[in-house]
């Protein structure tokens, strides 16, 4: 592990939190904790622990997600750096996937897998994953929980061991380290300071049976409030010297309107004595959220306004009021509150990641569109909202309007990767090869869209008979992890065309293996599509 960095360096990465020399551990909820590190993306916790030089600690992870997945981080060339064949065998037996795209490890770590390097690097020796209470309370929920581990086991059977239930807790060994899954009340006594790691989404997720990331847009109410959580933690007698709290708004884990739960948690854990006013604000927020859940908009507004009178500079209050006034069709007041919220905290700006993912996952397209419209009403220069609307229109095959929104987004933000990629995709589908190539080439610069852009570039090159370029693009897409049936099939065809029979056969074999895994019902559906397609061709209705 690297030399521990000075707290000053750490403070630079996460401003305002870390001071010199870690203080002694504090009793959570009873004594002030001075190291409370706030972050948007939860994977920053790994870097915070690493930079602070932690080793062999116990991690208490309050989260609606395990945040553990395998990282294909191993450089294939490391096989050539081994000392003997036994080492080669060991590397191959570990079952780790290989980093064929040769990305830097930092590029591979994200919010869904940072606990893997945490365990692998020995920062912690055991993990208590504290899940929302309801997740342990029914058989179907427990089954969903076990499935989370089984999915990881499928990818790497050696890395996940000893899955079992014991005394109402679920136990596992990940990377040879003990992981215990339990409710907060079942957390055993721990006689040493722990690393306390909290995700705000822990407070809002009710069930593991909901579609990932398990947020139910119909039940937007925390199952536990920060005050109660902190008092329950205090009852457990847990001590800690380092707390990490992630908002996790990006990606739809915590709805933006609930970001304040993370801030309230921080206030409570930092242990500054709360004033009567602070307590009142916490109560007003609770009243507001409960009233909103019951559809009582006026009551909700009144509660938030009472909170605002007590704390006029809290961005969360302004943001929630902005949403509510927009719903009440008071656009000016809504925009004024939105402006204030984003002035006080720019992370309240409605960006692609902070908007629709959950509604989108639930298929609530009208709600998604309404969210984008709201973002544009607040800020007509919101490129993400234009891109989002473009995406919805493209889904409905309203290509013209979709393209118009993408172009608006690009006029505002010329480097907008998703707008570039989506435009490239639409042009490729419509045979506008030059335009498609131009847009896709520009999308290549984005880590998120590079693989997909390579795939469609391969398609464009193949259609324009540039075989070598098509092969190179498809191969790049494969290296970037885009393994799908059309890619293997097309690449096989290209190899064959260029006389590389052996390589072609391998790609066809892969495609056929994937085809065999397609459920029968999907095959029937695609057969139906093919039939319709043929009928339209013969009718001449297909342009």
């Amino acid at each position, binding site marked *: 592990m690297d030399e521990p960095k000075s707290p000053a360096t750490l403070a630079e990465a996460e401003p305002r939190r870390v001071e010199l020399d870690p203080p002694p551990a504090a009793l959570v909820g009873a004594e002030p904790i001075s190291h409370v590190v706030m972050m948007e993306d939860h994977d920053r916790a790994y870097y915070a622990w690493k930079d602070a030089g932690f080793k062999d600690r116990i991690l208490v992870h309050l989260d609606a997600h395990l945040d553990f997945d395998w990282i294909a981080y191993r450089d294939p060339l490391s096989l050539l750096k081994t000392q003997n064949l036994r080492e080669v065998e060991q590397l191959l037996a570990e079952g780790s996937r290989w980093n064929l795209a040769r990305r830097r490890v930092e590029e591979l770590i994200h919010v869904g897998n940072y606990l893997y390097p945490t365990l692998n690097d020995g920062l912690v020796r055991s993990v208590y994953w504290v899940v929302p209470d309801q997740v342990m309370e029914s058989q179907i929920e427990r089954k969903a929980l076990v499935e989370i581990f089984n999915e990881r086991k499928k990818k790497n059977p050696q890395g996940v061991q000893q899955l079992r239930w014991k005394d109402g807790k679920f136990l596992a060994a990940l990377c040879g380290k003990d992981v215990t899954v339990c409710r907060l009340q079942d957390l055993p006594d721990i006689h040493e300071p722990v690393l306390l790691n909290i995700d705000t989404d822990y407070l809002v997720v009710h069930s593991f049976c909901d579609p990932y990331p398990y947020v139910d847009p119909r039940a937007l109410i925390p199952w536990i409030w920060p005050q109660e959580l902190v008092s329950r933690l205090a009852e457990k007698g847990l001590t800690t010297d380092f707390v990490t709290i992630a908002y996790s708004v990006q990606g739809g884990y915590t709805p933006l309107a609930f970001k304040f739960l993370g801030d309230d948690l921080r206030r409570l854990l930092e242990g500054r004595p709360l004033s009567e006013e602070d307590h009142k604000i916490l109560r007003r927020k609770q009243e507001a959220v409960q009233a909103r859940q019951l559809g009582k908009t006026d009551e909700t507004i009144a509660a938030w306004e009472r909170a605002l009178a007590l704390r006029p500079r809290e961005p969360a209050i302004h943001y929630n009021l902005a949403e509510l006034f927009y719903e009440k069709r008071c656009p000016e007041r809504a925009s004024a509150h939105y402006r204030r919220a984003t002035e006080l905290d720019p992370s309240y700006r409605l960006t692609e990641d902070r908007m629709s993912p959950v509604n989108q996952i639930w298929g609530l397209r009208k709600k998604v569109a309404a969210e984008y419209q709201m973002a544009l009403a607040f800020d007509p220069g919101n490129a993400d909202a234009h891109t989002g609307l473009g995406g919805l229109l493209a889904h409905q095959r309203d290509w013209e309007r979709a393209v118009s929104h993408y172009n608006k987004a690009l006029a505002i933000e010329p480097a907008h990767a998703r707008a570039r990629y989506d435009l490239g995709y639409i042009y490729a589908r419509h045979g506008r090869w030059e335009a498609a190539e131009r847009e896709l080439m520009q999308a290549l610069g984005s880590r998120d869209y590079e693989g997909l852009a390579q795939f469609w570039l391969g398609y464009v090159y193949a259609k324009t008979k540039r075989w070598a370029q098509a092969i190179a693009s498809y191969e790049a897409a494969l*290296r970037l992890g885009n393994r799908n049936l059309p890619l293997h099939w097309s690449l096989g065809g290209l190899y064959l065309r260029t006389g590389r029979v052996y390589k072609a056969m391998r790609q066809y074999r892969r495609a056929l293996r994937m085809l065999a895994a397609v459920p029968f019902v999907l095959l029937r559906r695609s057969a139906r599509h093919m039939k319709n397609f043929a009928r339209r061709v013969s009718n001449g209705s297909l342009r």
Partner: protein
Amino acid sequence: MEACDKRLIKNAQIPWRILEGETLLVDQSEGELIRLNAVGTEIWSVIDGRRSVGDIIHHIEETFEVSNKQATMDVQRFLKQLLRQELVVEAPIS
């Protein structure tokens, strides 16, 4: 069957190393590690773009004391496999 005067060179895109008498080749485009046994390693080590297929057959015949027929069959089969997998390519005619 590869012509005996044909010359082959190792594919420069394929990193490789000899370890404990085995050759390890990393085919990154396929995401594969290819291991060559002792005979394969011997053949691999003499593929240098200068020696012809005939020279390689002769070398294997002498090194492993096998008949010319046996060496020709084994070397040809092995080289065909290497060519198909694009681990070696034909050397340009000088």
